[in-house]
């Protein structure tokens, strides 16, 4: 039997963070309001896709059970966007067996039927579709979603489209209004929420605590990631969460001065240093000293500094705050 690698080495794990919790509550509010569409935007590498993939569907299923049908679609940008190619992408996203179709209308009806049937099965008669990378979606694709929504609506099922993307998605909304397609904006982009990064030492502690306590590998073994990589030190009381203060100071210091007051650390720049730490410094011995210089070195090994500077350059945080 092939030995399995640790999920941390494969980056195939997901930690529950405060922003995810916040966003899940927001999504639940939208679902309860049976909105037609909304969008979630946030900085790059902040953990949106991971949240859409690993957390939102699972948490919605946990909250609503069979009362709701949830699907996820990763939008793939096309050189020439067309209705058929987008529909094929949706069919692929929902794992439909018949992706090929004789025409766009057939495929559209097929997908709508699928949503209707799944929606009728759910008690709330509601289907939630998360569209990841939605910032690249063009007008024709929103029109396709509009058609789908109308077909589904005719059968008494509500299709709620929740687009997830970067800040560009906000511009899309304005573009629709300027191009006299305000109904698209009103339908899909009227509600919005910003997916934030880690904003305080408390939130960072919560994340690091995930490595120490809530993670588990091999499954059911009760061995957290920290315990797995630093077994001796872990037994001696070592926890990554204990380094929260030092680590937050490092993020604060390395961030550009203009960002320090409203600092949001993207999740990637927290996860990657921890992964480097676990991979490079894994040891059996009982003492482990993670001093500031080592942690700074590890954070610097990521693209954190450059990225934060680019954020300042692009005024992304300002835009977000304005909106």
């Amino acid at each position: 039997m092939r030995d399995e690698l640790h999920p941390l080495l494969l980056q195939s794990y997901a930690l529950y963070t405060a922003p995810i919790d916040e966003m899940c509550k927001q999504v639940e509010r939208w679902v309860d309001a049976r909105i037609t569409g909304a969008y979630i935007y946030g900085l790059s590498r902040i953990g949106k896709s991971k949240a859409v993939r690993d957390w939102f569907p699972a948490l919605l299923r946990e909250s609503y059970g069979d009362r709701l049908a949830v699907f996820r679609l990763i939008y793939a940008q096309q050189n020439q966007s067309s209705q058929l190619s987008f529909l094929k992408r949706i069919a692929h996203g929902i794992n439909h067996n018949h992706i090929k179709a004789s025409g766009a209308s057939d495929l559209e009806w097929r997908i709508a039927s699928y949503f209707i049937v799944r929606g009728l099965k759910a008690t709330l008669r509601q289907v939630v579709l998360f569209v990841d990378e939605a910032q690249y979606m063009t007008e024709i694709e929103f029109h396709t979603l509009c058609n789908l929504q109308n077909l589904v609506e005719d059968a008494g099922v509500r299709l709620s489209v929740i687009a997830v993307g970067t800040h560009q998605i906000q511009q899309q909304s304005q573009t629709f209004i300027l191009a006299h397609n305000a109904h698209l904006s009103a339908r899909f982009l009227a509600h919005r929420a910003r997916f934030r990064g880690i904003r305080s030492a408390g939130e960072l502690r919560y994340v690091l605590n995930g490595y120490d306590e809530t993670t588990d590998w091999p499954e059911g073994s009760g061995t957290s990631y920290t315990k797995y990589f630093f077994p001796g030190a872990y037994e001696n009381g070592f926890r990554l969460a204990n380094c929260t203060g030092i680590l937050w100071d490092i993020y604060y210091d390395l961030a550009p001065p203009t960002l320090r007051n409203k600092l949001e650390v993207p999740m990637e720049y927290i996860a990657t240093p921890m992964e480097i730490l676990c991979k490079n410094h894994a040891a059996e011995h009982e003492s482990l000293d993670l001093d500031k210089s080592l942690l700074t070195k590890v954070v610097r090994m990521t693209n954190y500094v450059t990225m934060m500077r680019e954020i300042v350059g692009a005024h992304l945080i300002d835009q977000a705050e304005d909106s």
Partner: protein
Amino acid sequence: MKRVILSTQPWQIQATESVWSIIRRYLELDRPTTRQASDICGRPITGGPMEHWQLYRGDAGVSQYAIFQKSFGLTRRQMSEATLLLPRGAQGRQGEVRFCKQCLLMGFHSAIYQIPWMSECPIHGLPLQRECWNCGYPVNAHWSGIHSGDAYKCRKCHVYLGDPFGTARHPLTTADRRLLRNVHSKYLRELETICRVYFPATSNGYRFSELGYILHSEKMNSSKEKYLQPLEKTYSAKCEIRRHSKKLAQTAHEEGSSLRYERLEKLLKSIYKSFRRNYEKRMDVRQHRSMNHIKSGYSHGDMMEIERHNRDSTFIVWCLLWRMMENIHKRFPLSYDYRLTGQIFGGNVQRPLWEPQFLGRFFGSIGPAWYSEQGAVASWHASDGSRLCEPDLWSTCHAFTAYLLSLFSEMELLADAVIRLSFVEALRDDFQYEHLGIKIAATVVHGNTLYFSAWQPVDRISEGRLTWGRFALRSRERRILMHAEAEAFAMFARGGSTPSNQGL
């Protein structure tokens, strides 16, 4: 294996919902291409005779639906309820769908509506319909082509006949499900009873087909009394035959081996007459088409089974029966020959499926019979081209043989006790060839193959060994043999003596 995900979900399928209904929903919701549809259903659904497959499963069982079952996620129980176990002969018009309007509006059609004697919906109590309620055009299970969004529409007036999301929106209640399943299981029990009453031996393909033939008559009648009528007639005919058989056996017992062929023939004639009387009573001309089903009921497997059962006596019984029937038909022609002739010459005649082909000898009887170059039997001709046998006679003979074979367990006694001896006498008197001390009882040429049967006496004339065999002929031999046989049988028909060793 990757799970098949379609817009048609397994949970939409209701209890006893028919394959036709599921396919209909699939065509509507998934709008597949022709290829996708054939991949999912396990066979092409357009351009072929799909109709019966969607409604009835016949002798082939549920194994033929393996791909379909897997694609749509049906359980084994759902699959067995999705088609009706009904013999082909009883299935009526090709692809005819009977439905309850209320159920169809819900997007649901149950397989139990195809039960021949079912006249109303068990859930709604409405009479079952066959036609569109708007224009009266028949609803059938035929898909001439996959047109987007047409599966739920009437072919003629394009009115929507139901809601494809109906079963998702309003699934059947537990009580309704139970009701439908009870009807289905009750039907299976009834079918089993019919099989047990009418066919005491194990039901093979042939007997099942005959049952279909009987049920076909019943399908035309709506009330249960009428439905029972043909069955009762058949049963009475069988009783009559049983009576005759017993009489024959008793006579044989009393007279021992001295029972003459004439005596046997006389008794068999009475059996045949009783059969034909019942046969004609319960059959109208339209239903004669189902005789083809009976003919096709003779499979090679059936023959082999009979051969294993009692090889010699089977052969002798047939030998005598065919000759006898031919004589009777000459004396008492059927009353509606012209209509049957029209139908059969209209292209309904298919080459019989059964083997060996030497049975054709006894059917053609007074001349060598052969298949046409195309391999299809249109009629039987003598070597000079004159037609020897009317197709209606041919059909009736087959029907009768089918009928008698169902009683074979009774006839076995008759064959063992009587026919063997009589046949030997018949051999001596009428048609036999002598070759190397073996009496060649009959031959028939099919293609380049000669089939023959031989009687080899052991020590007394009443005991011997009956065998048959075949060998390939070269074209010259074949021509000579055909010619010689024609001459021999012509002489036999005129009452002359049979030349021996001709053609062998």
